[in-house]
């Protein structure tokens, strides 16, 4: 239809979303970048331009590097583990078995629970000596750990919680994808003599590839966004062993009140997310769409 009408209607309809997105996404991004070049205004010291000082400070900041390495380890473990488990769960739930509904519910339930609430339960699970996890470890002779209180295990403990929380969520996407696969395709493969493993490798897995990539992007974003359990369980400790990037931003901004340095850290996080976005639009969207 006619172009000016489209423009009028289109822009009117887009207006509310545009205003909101500008105010709470784009403008803050720009402001964050801008503020990262100034000192934090304190009641008695107005802010002054300091160029890239915050960024050099960042490079010298051991906590930042620790947060970054923690976050990379956190992502590198939680993402494949939760995706793999999610796929296994989806395959389980997609096959006919008794109690299928209950099993699906069990998998999915952690997803709907608030992370902070869940953290309280896990705090007990991880409690030294009487917590169930430690008792289980005790059974195999590895007992008496202060899992959350020891730097070498604290991050792993959070990783386990994250996997537990996220796998069920990703399962839904996989389940949807699996159900989208026409059963005749599986039948055709069976007729051709493919074993269950071959069917998975050569038919199912390629067909759910788009889902895998979609889930991957979500998981990547999540790995840099979810810090509720850090706040609730460890506050980044002990000795920063569980400090993740966003938690460090929160801590710097709202505990130390160094908002400008927090802005510089945020800019770094935004750059990471931009990389993910580039990866998605540049690579994933050009991936072969089979249907």
């Amino acid at each position, binding site marked *: 239809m006619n*172009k000016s*009408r*489209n*423009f009028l*209607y*289109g822009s009117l*309809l*887009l207006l*509310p*979303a*545009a205003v*909101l*997105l500008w105010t*709470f*996404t784009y*403008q*803050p*991004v720009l*402001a964050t970048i801008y503020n990262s070049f100034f000192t934090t205004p304190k009641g008695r010291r107005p802010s002054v331009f300091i160029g890239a000082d915050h960024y050099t400070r960042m490079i010298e900041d051991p906590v930042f590097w620790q947060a970054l390495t923690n976050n990379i380890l956190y992502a590198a473990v939680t993402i494949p583990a939760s995706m793999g*488990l999610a796929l*296994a769960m989806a395959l389980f739930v997609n*096959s*006919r078995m008794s*109690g299928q*509904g209950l*099993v699906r*519910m*069990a*998998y999915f*339930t952690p997803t*709907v*629970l*608030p992370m902070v*609430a*869940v953290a*309280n*339960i896990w705090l*007990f*699970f991880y409690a030294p000596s*009487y917590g169930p996890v430690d008792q289980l470890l005790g059974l195999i002779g590895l007992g008496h750990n202060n899992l959350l209180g020891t730097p070498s295990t604290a991050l792993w403990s959070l990783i386990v919680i994250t996997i537990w929380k996220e796998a069920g969520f990703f399962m839904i996407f996989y*389940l949807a*994808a699996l*159900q989208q696969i026409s*059963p*005749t395709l*599986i*039948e055709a493969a069976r007729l051709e003599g493919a074993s269950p493993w071959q069917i998975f490798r050569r038919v199912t897995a390629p067909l759910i590839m788009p889902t895998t990539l979609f889930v991957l992007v979500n998981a990547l*974003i999540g790995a*840099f*966004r979810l*810090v*509720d359990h850090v706040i*609730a369980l460890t506050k980044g400790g002990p000795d920063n062993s569980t400090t993740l990037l966003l938690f460090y*931003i*929160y801590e710097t901004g*709202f505990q130390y009140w160094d908002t400008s340095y927090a802005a510089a850290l*945020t800019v770094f996080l*935004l750059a990471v*997310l931009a990389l993910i*976005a580039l990866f998605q639009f540049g690579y994933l969207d050009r991936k072969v769409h089979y249907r």
Partner: protein
Amino acid sequence: MTSVSTPKAGIITTLGAWLLAFIWISPLLFAFWAAFHPATGASSFDLFAPLTLENFSQVLAAAPFPRYFLNTFLLVSLILACQLVVCTLAAYAFVCFPFRGSGILFMLVLIQLMIMPEILLVENYRTLANLGLRDTILGMGLPYLASAFGIFLFRQTFKSIPKELEEAARLEGANAFQILMRVFVPLAKPTYIAFGLVTVSYHWNNFLWPLVVTNSVETRPTTVGLQVFATVEQGVDWARVTAATLLSVAPLLVAFILFQRQFVQSFMRAGIR
């Protein structure tokens, strides 16, 4: 749900699935167990400790959880209602009124899929303070009222609605608003349900941003309330903390258990994948 031709799972698969399910549900089972037993039972895990509702009544007496629920409910309703409207309008514009540059606008919108408001919490906090909306439910919801995810999802769904339906409505004399309300919206119902569920559970569970913007009991949502409750100066009392935890997850959990079938199905029908 399962198509008939899916092979029946073997015994090992079934056992594996059940074991995993048990592990996955055990934290919740434990919480139930601890919340209904006296405080001393919890940490020593005495299976035969007597049942009690004491913990719940103590929690309710100790903290204004009903108020927190109300706050969460108001917050979630506000966000959901606004998101539905704002995202529907935007998606409709992208699908039915494309103009020069709307493609680029859409790409811009997609950026917000990556940059959730909580990442920008320092700046957003400043904005909110300038608006004088700190420590208000509106302020807590405001950064989320336009959801890129919603726009993306609705656009996708609207695009998948056969063009002929829109054309048929146009031929029958329906105007743009009628077409939206009488054709697009009802047809996208599964997507709306799925999106609604995602939004509700996201904001019911959201913590960091509300933690930053709320100060008072009058605005604090359940998650923050629970965190404040569990932040100990005098020592953790597992029984009461699990009781409080259960209280705060209960509404969502009950809703989920009741509607899990629809939840999962609408998720799939909405083609979120």
